[in-house]
Structure formats: structure tokens, C-alpha cells
């Protein structure tokens, strides 16, 4: 295998080598940045990579690379709480762990008793020395609370997901969730493939963010090989990304109505949603925009006439439903002060997307320079209340902005076009702002252009960790579906 030399595109991604003993100090120094992701990769030695996002004046990313020789690295989740989920994932997949004896929880891989005794699941590195800790709530907390198991098979038309709901009867004391029922081993599956082959599975990692995750992945492959897609192809990606945001926000609005029992509002939102999906199919060939993003560009040109003709009507339906809902006091009251995520919680956990923006963190991956948004900066709506109503308000403002941006990109010219990738070794980071927040992908290619390690981090993988905090904040059972609708995440994106 060829050694991987990460390339840093100036102004966008800066890569630092950090020795393991220095890592703790560096992490303290980087505390003003947002920890966006952390993962390991195997080469001659196992390397720990931390991806830091600068959401400030000069948006961009910093990657720290730390070779791990002795199976341990400095404990980081004490300094950066956002690192804990990844510490557990890395332990499961690579068998390396933070110094100390902090228990590491089960994340991706199912427990032994869920599979036949002889089943062996492949991991990305060596197997951990001990099984990860099973997450189980104590059956009593202070003598009162008990665990209410819910899932994995849930109500009609929802994904499989297991909630461990700790309650004293009505109030949510604690909540944890399992998604290992849906783990498809995607990062393992992508190894050895070319980016073009892998893209098929990347789009299906979280189908409701197919454009964003596909774009992030394609951009990672392009950064790794030093290529740049044609500008008109990047604008097509942006059109598709905004269409994806629009239909997702319409779907989230329908889900919010369903969870609050407003059938009329739900129907109105679903009419808008269906019209947007039909618009997607007419303009770009797929209701959920699969296959639009290609490695090195896009394979399809959007039908600008269809979008210009159909979008005002579809968005008009969306707006009509939203305005009617905002005039419905019983709906607004139900959303207000429900599922609060504080600014401090959002920052500490590194939350992204509408959830973070509703809690006062106006970060958006579209503001990172170097992409099609350079000449078309999006307005980033933010709220500070951090409740369901604030998230709904952020989504409505984003939808309006998406419609404006689509018009601008079509005016600037969006077409098909692909830059062929050279067969060369390299590594790169890619990003895109999905409807549920920043989607990241990192990959390393060998000299034949095949993937040696691909890391996928959809927005869902980040934001579920804020879900239990939102549910705990003085909420009762019936608030949980409302909070879930306002987060609008997928179990598929978390499980991968």
C-alpha cells in the first residue's frame, strides 16, 4: 500500500501532524474551533484524525493527524465532550482507546447475542481487547425511575430505532438510543472500490441527504486527486442541494404536524412535499435526486424551465401551510419551550445544521470558501431559543433562502460536466450542508485510485447526540415525537 500524503487546499483545509503526547495540549488550544469529526485509519500505523471546523470569520477546516503506536491515545472527551461517541466507535473498529479505564459504549456493531454464535463481523482494524460496554439504564434512579423500552420496530413508515426511555412515569429522566439494527458496514464496504463505484452506496447511506453526502464524498475524492469539477457542474450540485433542503423541510413540517395531531396541516405540508418531489423527478430525473452528483462533477443538467415553472407553485403550497400553522396558536404553543437545546449544549456536543442554528450557532458549511456559493452567499438564519419552534422557524427561513439561491444558480448557468479524476494516491476532506447539517466525508486513495479508507459523517451522526439533552429538558413522553420531527434526522445516517 502506498503511503498517504494528505493535501491541504490553501484556505480550506489545513493539516497538522501532532505527536500523541502533544495531542491533549493541542486540543485545548483548538477549543475555539468546533470538533466536527474524529476517526482512525490504518496504514503502516494507526492514525487518529480529528477534523476541526472554524465557524468564525474565515470558515475552513483543520485536520490533526496523530500516529498511535501503543493502542492508546490521550483521553479527549474530558476536554472536548463532542469526542465521546467517536472514541467509542474507534474502539469498536480499531481496538485503540483513550488512556484510562473510562467505559466505552457499544455504537455500531450489534451485541453478540443478536447474531448466531459463529458470526464474525469484520472491523476496520484489530478487534478490541474487550467487548464494548452495553448501554443499560439502571432500573431505578433514586428509587423511582424505570426503563421503558421502545423499538426497534416502531410506528408505520418510520425507521427502525430503539429508544431506552428512562422515566418516572411521565417525565423523561433519560433517553438513549441504539441504531445497530441498521448498521450496514458501509465504511468497511467502501474499501477497495473506486470513488465512482462507492458513490452508489454513499448516496444510500442516508437517502434523505443523498445529494449532500454524495457531494461531500465526491469533493473528498476530488480534493484527494487535486481535481476541480467544472463551475457549471458545481452550480448543478448546488441546485440539487437546495432542492434537497426544500423537500426535507417540507417533510419535517409534515412530521411536526403529524406529531402534534394536526391532520389538515399535515396534508397541506404533504401536498407541498409531493409537488417538490415531482419537481425533482422532472428536473433532475429522480424524486430523491439520486445519481445527480457524480465523482468529478455531475452527470445530468437540471431542466431549468421545469424548475422555474414548477417551483413557485410548490413553494407557494409550502408557504401557505407554514403561514397557516404559524397562525394556529395551539400548534405554536405546543412547539414553544419544547425540546430545548441550549447554546452551551449545542457547542459542547458539536451540533450542526438547523438544530445548532436554532440554538444560536450560525454555522453553515456553505460559507466555507472555494465552492459554488462563493458568488452566491446564503443568508444564515439563526435563533437563540433552542426549542422546537426555533428549529421550525430556522427551517422556514432556510427554505425561502433555498428558493432564492436556486434562482441565482440557474441564472448563472447550471449544466452537466465532469472532470476526470487521475489515478493517483492521496487523501482529502469534503463537505456539504445537508438539510440536517454539515455532512463530511474523508477518504484516502491508493495509487490505483482505490479507496483504502473512507469516512462518512452525515449530519445525523452528529445531531442524535443532542437528542437526549433535548428530550430531558423538562419534557414528557408525548414531546418526544415532536422533538424527533424537529431534529429531522435518520437512523440510517447514524448507523451507516
Amino acid at each position, binding site marked *: 500500500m502506498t503511503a498517504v500524503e494528505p493535501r491541504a487546499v490553501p484556505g480550506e483545509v489545513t493539516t497538522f501532524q501532532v505527536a500523541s503526547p502533544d495531542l491533549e495540549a493541542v486540543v485545548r488550544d483548538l477549543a475555539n474551533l468546533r470538533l466536527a469529526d474524529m476517526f482512525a485509519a490504518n496504514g503502516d500505523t494507526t492514525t487518529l484524525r480529528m477534523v476541526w471546523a472554524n465557524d468564525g470569520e474565515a470558515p475552513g477546516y483543520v485536520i490533526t493527524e496523530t500516529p498511535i503506536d501503543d493502542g492508546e491515545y490521550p483521553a479527549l472527551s474530558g476536554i472536548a465532550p463532542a469526542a465521546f461517541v467517536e472514541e467509542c466507535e474507534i474502539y469498536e473498529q480499531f481496538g485503540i482507546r483513550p488512556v484510562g479505564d473510562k467505559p466505552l459504549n457499544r455504537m455500531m456493531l450489534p451485541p453478540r447475542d443478536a447474531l448466531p454464535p459463529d458470526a464474525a463481523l469484520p472491523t476496520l482494524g484489530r478487534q478490541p481487547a474487550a467487548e464494548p460496554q452495553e448501554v443499560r439504564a439502571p432500573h431505578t434512579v433514586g428509587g423511582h425511575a424505570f426503563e421503558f423500552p421502545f423499538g426497534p*420496530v416502531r410506528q*408505520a*413508515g418510520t425507521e427502525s430505532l430503539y429508544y431506552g426511555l428512562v422515566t418516572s412515569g411521565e417525565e423523561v429522566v433519560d433517553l438513549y438510543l441504539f441504531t445497530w439494527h441498521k*448498521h450496514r458496514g458501509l465504511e468497511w464496504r467502501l474499501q477497495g472500490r473506486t470513488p465512482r463505484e462507492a458513490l452508489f452506496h454513499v448516496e444510500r447511506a442516508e*437517502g434523505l441527504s443523498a445529494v449532500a453526502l454524495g457531494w461531500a464524498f465526491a469533493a473528498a475524492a476530488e480534493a484527494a486527486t487535486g481535481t476541480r469539477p467544472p463551475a457549471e457542474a458545481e452550480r448543478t450540485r448546488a441546485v440539487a442541494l437546495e432542492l434537497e433542503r426544500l423537500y426535507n423541510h417540507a*417533510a419535517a413540517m409534515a412530521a411536526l404536524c403529524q406529531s402534534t395531531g394536526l391532520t389538515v396541516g399535515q396534508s397541506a405540508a*404533504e401536498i407541498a*412535499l409531493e409537488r417538490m418531489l415531482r419537481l425533482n423527478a422532472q428536473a433532475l430525473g429522480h424524486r430523491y435526486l439520486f445519481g445527480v452528483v457524480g465523482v468529478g462533477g455531475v452527470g445530468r443538467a437540471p431542466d431549468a424551465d421545469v424548475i422555474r415553472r414548477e417551483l413557485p407553485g410548490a413553494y407557494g403550497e409550502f408557504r401557505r401551510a407554514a403561514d397557516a400553522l404559524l397562525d394556529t396558536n395551539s400548534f405554536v404553543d405546543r412547539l414553544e419551550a419544547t425540546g430545548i437545546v441550549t447554546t452551551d449544549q449545542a457547542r459542547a456536543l458539536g451540533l450542526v445544521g438547523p438544530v445548532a442554528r436554532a440554538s444560536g450557532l450560525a454555522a453553515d458549511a456553505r460559507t466555507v470558501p472555494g465552492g459554488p456559493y462563493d458568488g452566491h452567499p446564503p443568508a444564515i438564519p439563526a435563533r437563540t431559543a433552542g426549542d422546537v419552534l426555533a428549529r421550525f422557524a430556522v427551517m422556514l427561513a432556510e427554505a425561502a433562502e433555498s428558493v432564492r439561491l436556486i434562482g441565482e444558480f440557474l441564472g448563472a448557468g447550471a449544466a452537466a460536466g465532469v472532470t476526470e479524476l487521475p489515478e493517483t494516491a492521496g487523501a482529502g476532506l469534503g463537505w456539504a450542508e445537508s438539510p440536517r447539517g454539515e455532512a463530511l466525508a474523508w477518504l484516502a486513495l491508493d495509487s490505483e485510485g482505490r479507496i483504502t479508507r473512507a469516512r462518512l459523517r452525515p449530519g445525523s451522526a452528529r445531531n442524535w447526540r443532542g437528542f437526549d439533552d433535548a428530550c430531558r429538558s423538562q419534557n414528557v413522553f408525548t414531546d418526544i415525537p415532536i422533538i424527533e420531527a424537529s431534529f429531522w434526522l435518520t437512523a440510517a445516517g447514524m448507523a451507516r
Partner: protein
Amino acid sequence: MTAEAVRADELRETIARQFGRSLHIRTLDTGSCAVCEQEIRLLAAPHYDLTRLGFFFTPAPRHADLLLVTGPMIRAFEVAARKTYDAMPGPKVVVATGACALGGVYPADPFTHGTVGAVLPVDVWIPGCPPSPLALLHGLGVAVGRLAEKVRDRSFTAADYPERTRGDS
């Protein structure tokens, strides 16, 4: 024809007719990417409105006649899938929904069975990635036909349950 046989015929007809008017669907996600679920939710939306055709979603497998299964059947999910199927009363049909469920996305490997058919007895296959709501409605119509056949094949006596011995509840 004995009076008993006539009554059994009537019962068969009645049930076949009634399934046509009121068929309850339980959905089951065995590892989808969340898009099939979105299309399934849209079945209840105004453009498609499956209740006008006599279909209803039910949250309980005990009340379900039809199991609408998405995803490639993750091995770790197999127990939950079997439990859901076993909890449904007969006669019942299984509809495999979408490219994953049909075997077009994932191979059989340590993580997934690759197809729903490896674990559950599939009656109807609905292709598409994802199948559009209209494709789902068409598949559901085919499934009603299969269910009616299964009803016709029944004698409505203990012979329908060879696995049960007398005295079982």
C-alpha cells in the same frame, strides 16, 4: 354440499370481500436508507390517500394482514423481523419493498442477508429505488389478490393449523 361446507364458502367470500375493503399494513424497516419510509408515509398523503382504497396502517402486528418490508435484512435485525412476522395472524402476506429488499443493493455478507426473502416468505416484490407511491399502490393491489387466494385456500377448520395440537390456545 353439506350445510357446513356452504357456510365455509360464505365465510371465505365474506373475508375475501372484507380484506378488499379493510386491509391493515404493518411496515418493517430492516436497514433502509430512510427514503422508502418517506415514500410509504406519502401513501397516506392527499395525492395517494390509501385509506380510500381500504388500506390502513397499523402500529400493531397483531392487527396486521400485510407486512411491508424495506431494507436488505440486516442480520442483527433478523430476530425482530421474525418476531414481527410471527406475531401477525394468518392468512398474511409479505411485500418486499425497494431495491434493497429485492437484493439489488447489498450482497449477502456478514452484515446483511442481502434480501428480505432470505428470512421471510415474500409474496410480492415491489422494485424501485425507492418505489414511487404509485408503484407501492400497485404492489399492494397485487398483494390483496395473493391474500384473497390464501383465504380461498383455507378450510376454516383445525386443519388450517397442523402445527397446533388440540388443547392449545
